[in-house]
């Protein structure tokens, strides 16, 4: 792998809540290569959003964010260090747009220019039809797909090097999803952008991502090239997650489920966080937290059964 654009080591995000300390992220190691699309998957509460919100400085003031973060090789703030370089695309484009200002007024603020020609260009790049008219429109006059295109235009207006897309297609219908995925892929090509694509939908990830990181209980369980991870999962959790994803080839079959629940953020975890739900659990699993170990130059997993193959 070329020198990473973003490198995260042992990131820990902890929230103080009235019911106790919640460990949302429990030591994540992650590299993002320049120009790649990294998919980040996992169940709800596994720390997908918390990780990137922390890096963007969006954690609540009471949260503690520690770890080692490097941008382009240079150490940077753990909390918020990404902000000057990254832009965000939201899950619900309706909520990410201000309802009482026109698209043009909002875009002008983030683009730092009032020039209608320049603003129309930005809307044109994300495939919004009739940009001069779209600038005058209010968000509620747009469809969901058009709103998401507008949100992407806002993100591009900030001239980011890294685009963080937090479930950007989850709230859209399937045909619109496909259009937005194509748009993101083509924008990445044109601008040589780096994209982190957070999703719980493995089908979407397999379609758009180059590499994928599977998160479990605030740690990376498995990370590698999309084909490696999805075709030959090593970590029992990744394997179970893939088995529990419906596909057209499985019509009529029962869908596999993973017994049990993701450990609560308040719980102390000793050893492997997945041990209680794992079919292959042995005593050694509960003794120590398994580190990420490479199985090939492009593939690594955090499971005690993985032999160091690199």
């Amino acid at each position: 792998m070329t020198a990473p654009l973003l490198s995260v080591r042992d990131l820990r995000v902890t929230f103080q809540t009235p019911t106790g300390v919640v460990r949302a992220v429990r030591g994540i190691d992650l590299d993002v290569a320049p120009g790649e699309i990294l998919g980040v998957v996992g169940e709800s509460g596994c720390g997908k959003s918390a990780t990137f919100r922390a890096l963007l400085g969006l954690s609540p003031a009471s949260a503690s964010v520690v770890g080692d973060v490097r941008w382009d090789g240079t150490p940077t703030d753990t909390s918020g260090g990404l902000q000057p370089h990254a832009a965000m695309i939201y899950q619900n484009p309706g909520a990410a747009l201000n309802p009482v200002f026109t698209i043009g007024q909002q875009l002008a603020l983030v683009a730092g220019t009032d020039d209608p020609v320049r603003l129309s260009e930005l809307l044109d790049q994300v495939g919004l039809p009739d940009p001069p008219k779209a600038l005058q429109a209010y968000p509620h006059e747009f469809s969901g797909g058009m709103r998401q295109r507008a949100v992407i235009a806002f993100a591009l207006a900030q001239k980011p090097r890294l685009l963080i897309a937090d479930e950007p297609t989850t709230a859209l219908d399937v045909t619109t999803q496909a259009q937005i995925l194509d748009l993101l892929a083509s924008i990445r090509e044109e601008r040589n952008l780096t994209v982190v694509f957070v999703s719980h939908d493995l089908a979407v990830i397999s379609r758009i991502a180059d590499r994928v990181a599977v998160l479990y209980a605030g740690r990376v369980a498995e990370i590698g090239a999309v084909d490696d991870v999805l075709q030959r999962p090593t970590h029992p959790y990744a394997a179970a997650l893939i088995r529990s994803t419906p596909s057209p080839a499985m019509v009529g079959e029962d869908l596999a489920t993973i017994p049990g629940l993701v450990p609560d953020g308040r719980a102390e975890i000793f050893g492997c966080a997945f041990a209680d739900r794992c079919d292959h659990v042995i005593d050694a699993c509960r003794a120590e937290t398994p580190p990420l170990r490479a199985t090939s130059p492009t593939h690594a997993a955090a499971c005690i059964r993985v032999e160091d193959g690199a």
Partner: protein
Amino acid sequence: MRYLLRRLLTSLGVVLGVVTITFVVARLVPSDPAALYAGPRARPAQVEQVRQDLNLDASIPAQYVSYLGDLFTGDLGISFANRRPIAEDLLNFLPATLELALLATGLSMAIGIPLGVWAAARQDRRRDNGIRLVAVTSVSVPVFWSALILQLFFANRLGLLPLSGRTSSDVEFAERTGFFLIDSVLSGSPSNVGDVLTHLVMPVIVMAAYPLGLTIRLIRGSMLEVLGEPFIEAARLGGVPERTVLFRLALKNALAPALTILGLTFAYSVSSAFLVEAVFNWPGIGRYLTDAIIRVDFPVITAATLVITVIYVLVNLLLDLLQARLDPRVELE
């Protein structure tokens, strides 16, 4: 435009309803208007004469119809107490109250809105707690008390401001609009303007206290809601300066829901002006109305109720139009 016409028509219905109710109530009260008008020492023959003159011997429905007819021509009837046309008296007293209420509402918004925004921007921090204390204090201090304290300090002790009234006794200018601030400016004499202003200071502050606290609390509350929205986070991430985020992007969202209630505080100020007017000897509609109530002057009570109703209805209409301007999702249908 069609919306406006329809709203004006329904507003007319509301006013008609209030007119009918006040009319009926005034006639249900067991007292004889003719006797009241004729005075306590009138002979029965004189009372009878008054009854005929005022058309009070007609049937109640006939009186109602002729009353409505008079209203449409702007005739609000004649006061029992001073036998003057009520419409003329109201034209004298109403501007005095409106001048107070407009300035008080304007002042409370000019101060309350930024304070509410600043408080919300620093939720639960020291500045927020300080501003909330101001808000609670200003809604809870009774008008008569704060008025007396101000008078004691600024008029009696320091002699900086006049104790009461709209002008000093030696100041005179043409009352063209009844709004003394405008009239004094029209008179072209700076000393007149200064005199009117110094008389306005204390009553306006006292009257503004309650709406000020309400404004702070409402704006703070609806700002807190808006500041939690993803589009605010997105704007901050996009590098929009915090001032613009607070006072433009967030405030326009927060203003629309708060405005409905804030506008009604203006109408409330008009109808609750009597305390302020009593303390500051201010010849407004509140004092006119309280005097009428004490003297059981039914035509005046009915007419003043009607005027206050009309003010409420108009303010409501104005607020709806303003809300539609602030929020493009509100359709005027």
